[in-house]
């Protein structure tokens, strides 16, 4: 088991290194530079911009830049963000917990909801509730996340103003509230973005879970159990569910990059200061170090996520346990 994990970690590192190199080269090849935001002001001359560029080392040839960057990365320094004018490490440290919070809540809720729905549907296969839920999950499964986010905003911020639409906490009052009120405020702001992500992901999981359950229900040993006279529920609980969870666990590994990417739109529309939105902005402002930094963090999260999924899978399925 441990050898397996170690091997996967090494592979993961190689993957991250590959991705980072590609990003590094890609973004530097693109036209434009990090100091273009001062376009509309005719007071910032080309000399000033050239000086800034030299200060950050962006005027050196790309391989030289990469070597220097690699050296600093190994020491744990992610470089300097030109758009936020502070170390990239600080920027990431601020944004990462926000994304993790949103992703964690969305993951837990969507897996819980999705698995429950899938099981419910599988047990009542062919009946009206199954078909209805099937249409509902298909509906959400086919929806673009940015559109759902917009509709949520339209409904719950404008038409029925129940939830706040922007930010993580109240901009003004938060530091001055008692703890319980602060927590309530956090939850309040979390609802819309988390709900958007949850609905979409839960739909995917529900469909997979239903299909996986139906697969298993036909399996031999389940038929044997039925022949032995066990009640349907018991069969579901004891045999089918545990085995049907396996394919869904692999979804866990896929959910990470999906949520990370899907969060870009949701974070943007709801002004949630997380990694997806940060990366998008960094790309737009050609903030080289920040882009590579976010890619590294994103890559690590994805690798860890899929590793976790594989370990869970191996742990759950006794047939797959490696010696």
């Amino acid at each position, binding site marked *: 088991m441990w050898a397996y994990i170690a091997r996967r970690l090494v592979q993961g590192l190689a993957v991250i290194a590959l991705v980072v190199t590609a990003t590094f080269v890609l973004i530097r090849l693109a036209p434009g530079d990090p100091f273009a935001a001062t376009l509309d002001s005719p007071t910032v001359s080309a000399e000033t911009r050239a000086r800034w560029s030299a200060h950050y080392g962006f005027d050196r040839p790309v391989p030289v830049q990469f070597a220097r960057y690699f050296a600093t990365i190994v020491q744990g320094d992610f470089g300097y963000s030109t758009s936020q004018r502070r170390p990239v490490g600080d920027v990431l440290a601020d944004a990462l917990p926000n994304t993790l919070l949103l992703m964690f809540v969305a993951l837990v809720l969507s897996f819980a909801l999705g698995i429950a729905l899938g099981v419910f549907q599988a047990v009542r296969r062919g009946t009206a509730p199954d078909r209805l839920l099937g249409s509902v999950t298909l509906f959400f499964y086919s929806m673009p996340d940015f559109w759902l986010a917009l509709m949520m905003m339209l409904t719950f911020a404008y038409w029925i103003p129940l939830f706040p639409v922007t930010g993580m906490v109240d901009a003004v009052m938060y530091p001055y509230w008692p703890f319980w009120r602060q927590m309530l405020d956090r939850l309040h702001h979390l609802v819309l973005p988390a709900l958007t992500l949850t609905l979409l992901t839960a739909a995917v999981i529900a469909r997979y879970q239903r299909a996986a359950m139906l697969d298993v229900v036909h399996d031999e040993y389940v038929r044997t159990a039925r022949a032995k006279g066990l009640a349907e529920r018991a069969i579901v609980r004891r045999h089918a569910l545990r085995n049907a969870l396996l394919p869904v666990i692999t979804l866990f590994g896929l959910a990470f990059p999906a949520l990370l990417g899907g969060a870009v739109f949701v974070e943007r529309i709801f002004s949630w200061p997380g990694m997806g939105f940060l990366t998008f902005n960094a*790309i737009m402002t050609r903030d080289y170090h920040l882009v590579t930094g976010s890619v590294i963090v994103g890559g690590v999260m994805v690798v860890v996520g899929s590793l976790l999924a594989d370990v869970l899978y191996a742990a759950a399925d006794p047939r797959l346990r490696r010696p």
Partner: protein
Amino acid sequence: MRGSWGAWMVAAAIVALVTLPLLRPPRIRDESAGPWRMIMRRFRQNRGARTALGIVLALYIIAALAPALAPYPPNAQPDPIAMQVLAPSVAHLMGTDLASRDVFSRVLHGARVSLAIGLLAVLLSITVGTIYGAAAGFIGGKTDAVMMRIIDALLSIPRILLLIMVTALWGQLSILLLVVLIGMTGWFGVSRVVRAEVMAVSAREFVISARSLGASRLRVLSRHVLPNVLSPVIVAATLGIGNVIILETGLSFLGLGVQPPQPSWGSIIQDGAQQVSAHWWISVFPGLAIVTTVMAFNAVGEGLRDALDPR
């Protein structure tokens, strides 16, 4: 793409040819012949899938006939002052947008873009993915392991971020380039599926016996392996179209995909997203169009999967 009547009629005709046989309801006394007929029969028994397929066909026909069906030219701005943001009415079924353009006409023309990009990008994806996966599965050994690790690396990048990075960095892309870009970022999953199938089938007896009889590798590949691989690939392709459509609309929403004034469902949504409460119809209707289209493709894909692999 715009006004190219010929291309669209051909495309719609092809789609019709492929889908019409599948639309007939199954007759009780069907003489079941080969495995393909069985598959088609099972598909036709699935009413949901049949309806979805009908919708897909209708969409392609509508897209092909868009210039005729649209009541107004999609880019006409009759009066950007007085006729801005009119609510839906009989004259303008989906209202007008900020430049007084008729939203319904734009949505119809936007269907062309989305369906075209969807189909072409997916075709590119499955072609590249099949070749790559078949090669990996067939060659096996160390090469296969390396090839698959590369796929793992590529799969771990969120596709949307990769697309954003490339489109943002290189500015405006023509529709062709967009198709290539989306297609070339979507073949990783297909290659995995194909490789698994190839390896599974290669181990089957009839292939081994064929090879022992001296058949060349290529012949074995083309006559025995590929036909079996085809089914999951078709399923992946159909499900993939929905994904591609969502991706393209997402890019257009960010201003990175299709360029103005070309209407795309994503860019129409973006037009209205500025103040979605003041003119909700600009963003709601194209979104519904996307959902309907993707739902139809997904339902067809799942119907195909159930038909190919019944439980």
